[in-house]
């Protein structure tokens, strides 16, 4: 097994020096745009009307964001790309692989199904779909495992920890 820490391409968080990843400049630039938008929002709170107003600390925080985001963008521009092919092809092959997109869509569908279907049914469907998509074998076992896991989670949280769980049309 190759641990992420041994492979900088897999785990850039632990690597100290690496090339630019596909989409990294765009992400850093989006961070800068977000900082500017939030900075403007902070200014609209109370402007520069005093040193102890509600907007002064938000302005300090967003100002810090803008400056650090500029450094990040500049660092990325200076850095050489780690990939050889077209960046978009590499982006969807490495950073946002189809598997990640499908699982993120499954998660989103699950969360939006929580209210209409309720916790039990939506969680069971998500668990089975998620496990079947990722594990891709022994489907009957996965079906039983999903049902058992939901039963344990529901009973534990609903009756032992008395947590209220989303209730839909059935459960």
């Amino acid at each position: 097994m190759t641990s992420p820490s041994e492979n900088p391409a897999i785990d850039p968080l632990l690597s100290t020096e690496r090339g630019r990843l596909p989409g990294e400049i765009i992400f850093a630039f989006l961070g800068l745009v977000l900082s500017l938008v939030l900075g403007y929002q902070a200014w609209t709170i109370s402007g520069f009307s005093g040193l102890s107003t509600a907007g002064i600390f938000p302005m300090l925080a967003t100002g810090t964001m803008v400056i650090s985001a500029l450094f990040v963008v500049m660092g990325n521009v200076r850095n050489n790309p780690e990939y050889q092919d077209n960046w978009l092809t590499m982006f969807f092959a490495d950073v946002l692989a189809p598997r990640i997109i499908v699982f993120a869509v499954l998660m989103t569908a699950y969360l939006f199904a929580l209210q209409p279907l309720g916790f039990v049914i939506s969680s069971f469907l998500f668990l089975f779909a998620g496990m079947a998509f990722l594990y891709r074998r022994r489907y009957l076992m996965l079906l039983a495992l999903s049902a058992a896991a939901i039963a344990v989670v529901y009973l534990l949280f609903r009756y032992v920890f008395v947590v209220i769980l989303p209730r839909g049309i059935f459960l």
Partner: protein
Amino acid sequence: MDALSYFFMAWLDPRLLMLTAIGTFAGIYVGAIPGLSVTMAASILISFTFTWDTNSALALIAGVFLGGVYGGSRTAILLNIPGAPSAVATALDGYPLAQRGEAGKAIGLGTVMSVIGGFVGIIALAFAAPVISSFALMFAPRDYLLIAIIGILLVGSLASSSLAKGIFAAALGVVIGLVGMDPMTAQARFTFGNFNLMGGISYVAAMIGFFGVAEVLYQMRTIDAASVKQKIGRMLPEWSLIRKYIPLSLRSSAIGVTIGALPGTGGDIASLMAYDQAKRTVKNPSRPFGKGAYEGLVAPESANNAAVGGAYIPMLTLGIPGDAVTAIIIGALYIHGLRPGPLLMVETPHLFWFVVGSLTLANIFLLIFGLGGIRLFAKMVELPKGIILPLIVVLAVVGTFAVQNSITDVYWMLAFGIVGYFLKVYGFPVAPIILGIILGPLMDLSYRRAMISVRDDPGRFLLEFITNPLSLVLTLFFLLIVISQTPIWKRLWQFRAKSA
């Protein structure tokens, strides 16, 4: 003599003994479930005690708090998902240790060091409470501000790959923490006119999103290469290993107690500061820090449990919460008719000694359950990634929803999870975001109170940082951290090394 009898009350009463054991066990396992924080474990379990007598409630609370802080480290080591903010630093070296097949040893060593830290914290609570509480009472708003900035700076320095990314993450966290209505003027901040944002963004949703969901998505990248399966080897750490790290554990525990005793700070900052201190002072670690150094595990694990004893000091003597869990406990004490504060120790000293005794007992249970349940717990993570990752998502949903029964929080969790995934891929650390969310509102209030106290005079504001002895010490500490992040510091060390 009276103090001694109250100290042993929970030890000799079978009911109280059982409640302390249940509290510790539940704290460990709820705290260890990915996405369920010790804050949530405490708030849910403590809610059962409102109809109980005070002693029963205090016994359970002591167990939940100590167990929950410790339990958070389990998932930090095995899944790289801290179960509590106090376990963020544990993941830095605990997870690489698990990846090297030393998960059992890491948990075993972490357990023993947590227990040592716990005892140091309890001893400090018992003997130094009056001294530390009078010290903490002298703190002015500017001192709170300095402590919070120091905490943020320390986390920024932990993001070793890029300081700019660490600072960006921390500032983003501060902004997230400031969303909602300003508590001083009721002005809306960063709400974009949306009424749902007036109450702010749930900290739990952010924590579970950034640490839980983002990690699930990140794991997808290596799902074929490896499973989450960690090899659990020897559970009991060798005596030689424990003996070797006792001095570091005691040093880290001292940091934990001191930081834990400062109002507004808790196990999260204590463990990060202890980790940073170990990183700076240990000359020859077993492995480089961040790659599975035992020192990187011993320091935060000792400190965060030592901080529990420390957090009780301002809570019981001043009525000020040390962190989120002690804030919940203070609420529970009020419901039980108690008034935490300076008069508590004068009017009801027996209660103080009962708390000290319960914490000591809970610490012993921690050792038993911690070392006894490693294999059982490890079985949970021996499941293939394809099975465990969807399960983590379901638990993350339950954990987020349960705090406020809010579906909006669950959507926030997803959004933070997706953003957190990209942040992780592109090398932005997520721990400073969480610290920024916690400390942002505290920094904002402290800054404004300090500024109001000098009538918006910037000259006087700055002058007070150097004219007040306590503020001066903190300012010097702050400057030391800033300088240590610059090339000047590196050159100074190189010069010193050459001279030697």
